[in-house]
C-alpha cells in the first residue's frame, strides 16, 4: 500500500508538470495556427493596445518617475565618496533604459492588465462564452487571444519609453533640487554613454515582456476550471507566472542584447 502511494505520488510529480507544459505548448501551437491562417483584426488589436497599454500609462509614469528618483537619491552617496557625482545621470539613464524601465513596466502591466486578461477570459470560460464562440464558428484564438498578444507586444515598448523618460526626469529633479547637482552635470554624460543600441535593447525586452504577459494570462484564463474560485486561482497564477517569467527572461535577454564586454 505504501509503495503504491509513493509510486502514485512520484508519478503525479512527473505527470503534472508534463501535462502543464504540454497544454501550454498546445495553446502556443493553436495560437500560432490561428495567427498564420487568419487575417489580423486591427480594430481589436488597437482596442487591446488601449486597454493594456494606454490605460496602464498612469501607473507606469508614476513607477518610472519614482524609480528614477530613488535610484539617483540612493546612488548619489556612493558616487560622492570618490567624486563621481557627474556620472549620476548616466547611471540613472542606463539603468532605466536597460533594466528598470522594461522590468518595472512589465511587472506593473502584469499586475494591472495581465490579471484583468486572465480574469476576463477565465470568466468567459466558466460562463460558457468561449464555447458559445465555438458554436458560432468564431475561432476563440483569433477573437480573444491574438488581439491581446499582438496588442500587448506592440504597446509595451511605447509604455516602457515613457517609464524610461520619466525615470530619467525623476532622477534629474532629485539630483538638481535636492542633491546639489547642476543640470549640466546630470545631463552631459548621458548622451556620451547611452547609445541607440541601449534604447533598442530596452524596447526589445519590453516587447518580449508584453508577449509573455499576454500569453501567460490568456493561457491561464483560457484553461480556467471551476467557478469564481477558479477565476481567482487563474488570475493569481497568471500574475505570479508572468512576473517570474519576466524576471527570468530579463536575465537571458540582458545576456543576449547587451552582453558583457571583456
Amino acid at each position: 500500500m505504501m509503495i503504491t502511494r509513493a509510486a502514485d505520488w512520484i508519478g503525479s510529480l512527473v505527470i503534472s508538470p508534463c501535462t502543464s507544459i504540454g497544454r501550454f505548448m498546445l495553446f502556443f501551437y493553436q495560437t500560432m495556427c490561428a495567427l498564420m491562417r487568419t487575417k489580423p483584426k486591427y480594430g481589436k488589436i488597437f482596442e487591446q493596445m488601449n486597454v493594456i497599454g494606454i490605460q496602464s500609462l498612469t501607473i507606469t509614469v508614476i513607477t518610472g518617475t519614482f524609480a528614477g528618483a530613488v535610484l539617483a537619491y540612493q546612488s548619489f552617496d556612493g558616487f560622492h565618496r570618490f567624486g563621481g557625482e557627474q556620472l549620476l545621470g548616466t547611471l540613472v539613464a542606463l539603468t532605466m533604459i536597460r533594466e528598470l524601465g522594461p522590468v518595472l513596466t512589465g511587472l506593473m502591466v502584469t499586475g494591472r492588465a495581465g490579471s484583468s486578461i486572465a480574469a476576463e477570459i477565465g470568466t468567459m470560460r466558466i460562463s460558457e462564452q468561449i464555447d458559445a464562440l465555438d458554436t458560432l464558428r468564431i475561432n476563440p484564438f483569433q477573437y480573444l487571444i491574438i488581439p491581446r498578444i499582438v496588442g500587448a507586444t506592440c504597446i509595451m515598448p511605447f509604455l516602457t519609453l515613457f517609464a524610461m523618460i520619466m525615470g530619467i526626469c525623476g532622477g534629474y529633479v532629485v539630483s538638481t533640487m535636492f542633491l546639489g547637482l547642476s543640470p549640466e552635470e546630470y545631463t552631459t554624460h548621458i548622451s556620451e554613454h547611452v547609445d541607440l543600441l541601449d534604447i533598442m535593447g530596452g524596447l526589445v525586452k519590453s516587447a518580449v515582456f508584453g508577449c509573455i504577459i499576454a500569453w501567460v494570462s490568456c493561457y491561464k484564463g483560457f484553461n480556467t476550471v471551476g467557478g469564481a474560485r477558479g477565476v481567482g486561482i487563474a488570475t493569481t497564477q497568471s500574475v505570479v507566472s508572468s512576473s517570474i517569467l519576466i524576471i527570468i527572461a530579463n536575465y537571458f535577454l540582458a545576456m543576449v542584447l547587451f552582453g558583457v564586454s571583456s
Partner: protein
Amino acid sequence: MIELINVKKRFGNRWVTNGVSLKIPRNNMTVIIGRSGEGKSILLKQIIGLIKPNCGQILIDGTDVTKVRNRDTIFEKVGYVFQAAALLDSLTIFENIGLPLLEKNIKPHEILPIVKEKLALVNLTEEVLYKFPVELSGGMQKRVGLARTLMHNPQVMLYDEPTTGLDPVNARIIHELMSSMQKKLGLTSVVVSHDIDIFQYANYVALLQEGVVKHFGEASQVWNSNNPDLYRFIRGLAQKPPTHTWYQPSV
C-alpha cells in the same frame, strides 16, 4: 438523424455517460430528463462536439462527430442554446446576435435587418438592440441566445436546460417559443431539462440515469408510464415507491 452509439465519457474515475445509445428522431422535439449530475449537459455537449467522448459514436446525418476534424461542419448544422444564454457581456444585443456576420466583415447596416428578423422570431422588439446583456432579464437573455443561435439557420437545435432560473410565466414563454420554432422551421430539437412542463411540448422523452438511457418513448407514454424510475422523477419523489401497486398515475 442523430444517433448515439455506446457513448462513454469519464472524468477522473467517474463515468458520467456510461454507454449511452439513443436514436433521436428527425423534425421532432426530444427531451432528455434526469436528475442533477446524471450527465445530461455533458451528453448534449458531446453531441455538438464541444466535449469528446472516451468512446462511442455520435452520428449526425451519418457524420461521426467524434471523428470530425473541422468542427465547423457540425456547428453549421447544429445550434446550441446555453443554460445561462452565454451572451458576450461586453457586446450589445445587436453585436451578440450579429457576431458571426460582423466577424466576416459584413457591414452592420446589412446585418441589422437579419438581426431584427431573428429578434422577431423570439418575440423581442428592436428596443433591446443596443442594450447590453446585463440590462435584460434572464428570460430575455435566453431569447437573445436563441436568436443568436438561429443566425446560421441550423437544422438541429440543442437546448441546455433552457428554463432554469426562470419564473413559470417566462418558462412557458420559452417552451412555447421552442415548440413553435421547431414546427415553423422544421427543426430537430434536443432539450435537456428538469422542467416537467416540457412534456406538453415534447414528442419524445429519454430518461438518463446512471450514465445510460434507461427509458425512451413518446412523451405521453412516458408521462403515463408505470415504471418506478419515471414515476418518481415526474412526481418529484425522493424515494422509490414502496410497492409496484402503490402508485396510480392519473394524467
